[in-house]
């Protein structure tokens, strides 16, 4: 357990800059660390009202992905991350008919929580059902079966470009579904 610091911010900002330049592994490491930080905040704030903290973590990751162009690459990254987490938390409560106010300063005092296996079927898993068959094939090949883009392309006799496009559209559709609920 530790609090977030300027050093964390610089490390995460470096990872996200590499990710935006196309480095997949840097992006995965960035998202893993962000998931841990957001989980700490989500567990603290989602305790009441039937909001599942891990849902908030996952929706935050999706929003980070969909809105990654809103980060100014010379700005601190944690206020941006927690700004997105705050929005998803408020939205989760709103969908259950409740209004909450959250200050960013309050979140920044959050603590990093150790990661825990999340095995239950989540909303995002259900959102897969709303995709076209092609999108679902690709998204589940990569997410559930853990294949790379190249493997998925070979397995389903698709081009890598087609796999990337289907993945991108599928993820956009899932992200949009959360924005409209």
């Amino acid at each position, binding site marked *: 357990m530790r609090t977030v610091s300027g050093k964390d911010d610089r490390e995460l900002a470096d990872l996200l800059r590499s*990710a*935006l330049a*196309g*480095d*997949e*592994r840097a*992006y*995965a490491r960035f*998202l*893993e660390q962000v*998931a841990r930080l957001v989980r700490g905040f989500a567990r603290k704030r989602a305790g009441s009202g039937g909001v599942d903290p*891990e849902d908030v*973590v*996952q929706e935050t*990751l*999706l*929003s980070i*992905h*969909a*809105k*990654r*162009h*809103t980060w*100014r690459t010379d*700005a601190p990254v944690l*206020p*941006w991350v*927690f*700004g*997105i987490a*705050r*929005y998803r938390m408020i939205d989760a409560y709103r969908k259950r008919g409740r209004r909450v106010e959250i*200050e*960013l300063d309050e979140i920044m005092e959050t603590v990093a929580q150790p*990661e825990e*296996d*999340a*095995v239950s*079927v*989540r909303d*995002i*898993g259900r959102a*897969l059902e709303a995709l076209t068959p092609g999108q679902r094939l690709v*998204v589940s090949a*990569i*997410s*559930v079966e*853990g294949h*790379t*883009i190249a493997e998925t392309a070979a397995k389903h006799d698709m081009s890598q470009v087609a796999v*990337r496009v289907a*993945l*991108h559209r599928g*993820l956009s559709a899932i992200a949009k579904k959360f*924005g*409209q609920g």
Partner: protein
Amino acid sequence: MDTDALIRTLAADITRPSWPLSRTWWAALAAATGLAALVFFTAVGPRADFAEAIATLRFPFKFVVTSVLAVSAFGLLRAISRPEAEARTLWASLLAAPVLVLAAVVIELLVVPQNDWAARLIGTNNIHCLVLIPLIGAGPLGLFLLALRHGAPPRPGRAGAVAGLLAGGLAATFYAAHCFDDSPLFVATWYTIPIAGLTAIGALLGGRIARW
């Protein structure tokens, strides 16, 4: 789907990122200005005595007020279209234009005889003003709302309202070049109403379009 699977999936999708938001705002401003200019010159154009009027005090002051409004709204809108924006960010800058107008109204009341107040307030062009500012501002408002949708505003409705203010300030800057009524009494009344209308429409649409 567990969180690790989600991270794996998102990482595989990190192809080229879309347009950075800062660039989007400048592009939207340029396109909105072009669109407003097009509607303005097609529909009405500048007043005939523009060259003489610009040497007076009241005529150029209209541009000062409307462009101060547009500039402050643009700065605020860019800030509040990002997820890390705090509720209190920069809102004070929006007071600049109203304070300028109020000061000008006070001076106008001091220098103009009371008998002329009503005529200056009502002016000759007020229906024009109510119609043309929304007409010129509608396209820009649409563009700013699209840019806002590309962003991630923590409060989409409020951000939409500021987009309406920006569209109103931009439209009023063009409209001011056409309008013969230069008294601050007229501006404070007949410019405020359509700009407030655009702001309300922006708030309403922003709350729907810019949710994410």
